[in-house]
């Protein structure tokens, strides 16, 4: 019995605009001072009217372009009507039948390393609601409503049910998160609710007779972490399989409706939520307070011209341009735009992408983690690291010595000295790490040492190359900056030449 998990995600992204979507109130996460970022418009007071925030619409266009969506030339606003205390107008201004964008896609790397092409059904713009807080003491205290969030521009991105596992859903969300962060359209802070996710989940179960049945679709609401998305879908897939084996209920059976479930992150379970009052009829209709939006060629061209390089394209380019492996390119890109910029400066500066990627994904990343800072606050500027790596690439410095310089630059910083290219030379001098440029000196030293180790020389001549160890040690002791590999090669060469 082959079982496939089928998932579609609805992702809500708060756009990072200065002001709210339909009024001039500041758009900022501020739960500590409830109801202070409000005005007659977002409070839904009688007589107040909405005016569209052009910047919110532009950021939406940017996102839709990055998601390869078709962009509507004519789009409009609709009212989605329902009663809830966090919705002061008792309708949400949203987009119903003519969203500003539709039919896009996002490529996601699957667990097996394959690229999965996930179709986007639509992306539309709407206003966020306020937030209700309830007394959870069980003593029946009043619920409270904070309308600071009310009117935050919210982009809803709806995928097709193209995701085939919990891990894939997580990967999709991570890739989307990365893209949105790159685009700068949202701060994507999941703790603060700037990125929220609902998952539609069911199973396709292949029967013994070869037919495939589908289990009833469940919508899991309010998943607000990557881990939560993966865990909730994993749980839900198991639950549905068990449910099916018990009841045999499947999609399309009479009386089977879409179920809404919540996610309890503490107990790691989904739970049935009270169904909305009957089947909800939102009575959508065009909002007569807002004009439809027409989008011109010029406007689209302008937005297109302002776009940055998307993460997927940059990943490909890093592979091609700097010779990175797919894995390394992903590690760099997935760290975010600033990190990738840092890598790219280092790679360009030292002229060796592989050397650069080894350093930034190992040494730099380790330091960032230990110091709990982002690359923007990393003490060694990209040009300094590039200068250091260039010496290694040129053969002027061993990798091991390079690490010593790297560590020294960091401890410089910790002592209040800014790491600089000049300091690199100074450190090399101080520590005598310079590799010998003149092989003549090395050769004469080797010759002198060989002369003292006749037995070892004999062994080497007979092919016992490991006998070179003591000679290497001796030479290295006298020449600090020497590269052991080079010394070893030279010793063997000299001995064999002289045989």
């Amino acid at each position, binding site marked *: 019995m082959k079982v496939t998990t089928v998932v579609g995600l609805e992702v809500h992204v708060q756009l990072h605009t200065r002001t709210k979507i339909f009024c001039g109130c500041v758009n900022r996460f501020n739960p500590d001072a409830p109801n202070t970022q409000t005005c*007659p418009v977002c*409070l*839904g*007071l*009688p*007589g*107040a*009217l*909405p*005016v*569209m925030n052009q910047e919110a619409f532009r950021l939406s266009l940017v996102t839709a372009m990055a998601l390869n969506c078709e962009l509507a030339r004519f789009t409009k606003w609709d*009212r989605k*009507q329902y*009663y809830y*205390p966090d919705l*002061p*107008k*008792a*309708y949400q201004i949203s987009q119903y039948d003519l969203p500003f964008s539709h039919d896009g896609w996002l490529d996601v790397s699957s667990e097996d390393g394959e690229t999965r092409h996930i179709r986007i059904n639509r992306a539309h713009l709407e206003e966020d609601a306020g937030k209700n807080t309830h007394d959870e003491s069980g003593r029946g205290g009043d619920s409270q*409503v904070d309308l600071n969030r009310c009117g935050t521009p919210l982009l809803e991105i709806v995928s097709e049910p193209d995701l085939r596992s919990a891990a894939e859903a997580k990967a999709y969300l991570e890739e989307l998160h990365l893209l949105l962060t790159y685009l700068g359209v949202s701060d994507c802070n999941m703790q603060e609710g700037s990125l929220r996710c609902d998952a539609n989940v069911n199973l396709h179960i292949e029967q013994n007779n070869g037919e495939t049945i589908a289990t009833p679709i469940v919508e899991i609401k309010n998943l607000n972490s990557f881990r939560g998305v993966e865990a909730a879908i994993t749980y839900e897939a198991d639950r549905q399989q068990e449910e099916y084996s018990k009841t045999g209920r499947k999609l399309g059976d009479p009386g089977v409706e879409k179920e809404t479930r919540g996610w309890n992150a503490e107990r790691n379970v989904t739970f049935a939520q009270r169904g909305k*009052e009957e089947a909800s*009829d939102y*009575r*959508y*209709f065009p909002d*007569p*307070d*807002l*004009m439809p939006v027409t989008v011109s060629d010029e406007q689209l061209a302008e937005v297109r011209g302002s776009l940055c390089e998307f993460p997927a394209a940059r990943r490909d380019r890093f592979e091609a341009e700097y010779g990175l492996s797919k894995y390394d390119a992903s590690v760099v890109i997935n760290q975010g735009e600033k990190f990738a910029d840092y890598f790219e400066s280092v790679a360009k500066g030292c002229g060796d992408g592989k050397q650069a990627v080894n350093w930034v994904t190992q040494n730099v990343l380790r330091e960032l983690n230990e110091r709990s800072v982002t690359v923007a606050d990393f003490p060694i500027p990209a040009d300094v690291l590039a200068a250091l790596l260039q010496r290694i690439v040129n053969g002027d410095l061993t990798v091991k010595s390079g690490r010593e310089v790297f560590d020294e630059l960091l401890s410089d910083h910790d002592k209040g000295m800014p790491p600089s290219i000049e300091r690199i030379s100074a450190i090399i001098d101080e520590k005598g790490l310079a590799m010998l440029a003149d092989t003549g000196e090395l050769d004469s030293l080797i010759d002198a040492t060989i002369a003292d180790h006749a037995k070892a020389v004999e062994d080497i001549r007979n092919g016992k190359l490991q006998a070179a160890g003591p000679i290497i040690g001796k030479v290295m002791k006298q020449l600090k900056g020497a590269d052991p590999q080079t010394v070893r090669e030279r010793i063997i060469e000299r001995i064999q030449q002289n045989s």
Partner: protein
Amino acid sequence: MSLSTHTTQDLLDQLQSGQLTSTELVTTCLDRIDAHDERIGAFLHFEREPALQQAAEIDRRRQAGGTLGALAGLPVAIKDNICANGTRTTCASRMLENFVPPYDAHIIERLRQADAVLLGRTNLDEFAMGSSCENSAFQQTRNPWDTERTPGGSSGGSAAAVAAGMTPLSIGSDTGGSIRQPAAFCGVVGMKPTYGRVSRYGLVAFASSLDQIGPFANDVTGVSRLLEVLAGHDERDSTSIDRRVPAYSQNLDQPLDGLRIGIAKEHFVEGLHPEVEQAVRSAVDVYRSLGAEIKEVTLPHSKYCVAVYYIVAPSEASSNLARYDGVHYGFRAEKFDNMIDMYSATRGEGFGDEVKRRIMLGTYALSAGYYDAYYLKALKVRRLIRQDFDRAFEEVDVIASPVTPTPAFKIGELIDDPLAMYLTDIYTISANLAGLPGVSLPCGFSSEGLPIGLQLQAAPFEEERLLRAARMYERETDWHTRRPAMNSNSAS
């Protein structure tokens, strides 16, 4: 002094020349309200002191030689569905009985800038839904010409206040005739501007795509002066149009050469009171005698106006009024079991019958499975109605018609027959559906001594031409100079 003999322009001239102070004028208005409003019921609430203070301040500034606004010192009464910062705005509904907006509507800002004196708040049908002020939750406004009759509605208080000489100017809102119909019933001039000409910001919404704020006065000049202040672009209303506002009052007295007046046969059909028809046809004759060309036009879809209106308006209303749920402001029921029950009890107790009727109509029309057959179809017919007018206005400059099928009806006469009540709007609704400007001006009296109104409509943003055409008629007649007898013993 008595206001009844003065026009807006007279008063402005006297204020400017110093013959009259704003304090005197406002005092006269307030005294007249005191003397007669118990009988008429035009005002829902007003405060003497702030109005007098404002008047005194304007007088002081005038004496000091300061620059004053276009309506300096002139009292204006405001329909109680337009928000003014710190002033109770009730919409004649229990739901908003104690609602005090924290902001000014655009037109309130404009009036303050023009140094008008905000006199008080006038009665209306609850949330502007009605044609008689019978749907006010608080009081019945009576027609100053016959207190057993309604003043019309929904802006009945604003029309009656001007007719009764309690204020030279007032503001109404017109969604299906709510300015023009009470103007006709009360024998004053009332105008609905083009949709988008006056900002709706701060007007408590009834039907957003139809609502428009407009002026009342006792002559066309007064209406023009007030419209000059109200009209203009406002960035806070997305449906407000950014277009130059002509100086409407400037060339008002210049007759229009080659004026083409359209008469639509669809306007003269069964149900039209013979005396109203006679008065309107006589008015057309006046235009003919002034050299205007009279042309027959056809508005084939006008028979669907009432049907379309009673789908579009209630649909939008059902959505606009959903916010009155007892959560954030306004009335909240005292007894309820849970949240849903709180919503139901609040709305059940807070709204009157007509408002509930329209919310139900609209909710039904927007429901899944009915939307296409009702709302969507109504929008399509609405477009056809607009096209009828576009075609007609290729042939003529203004269309003359009755405002209402009959003169003012009696209080209680139609209250149990909503459909008959809805049909009283049959001539005014189309201007809202098509977004056109329309003006109602006095054109005669019935045998019972009730005013009859003439409606003129023009193409969008042709207010200047419309008002000049109206003024041409007004100059030739004296209907607008007649005033109801205001002896206090005529109380019913």
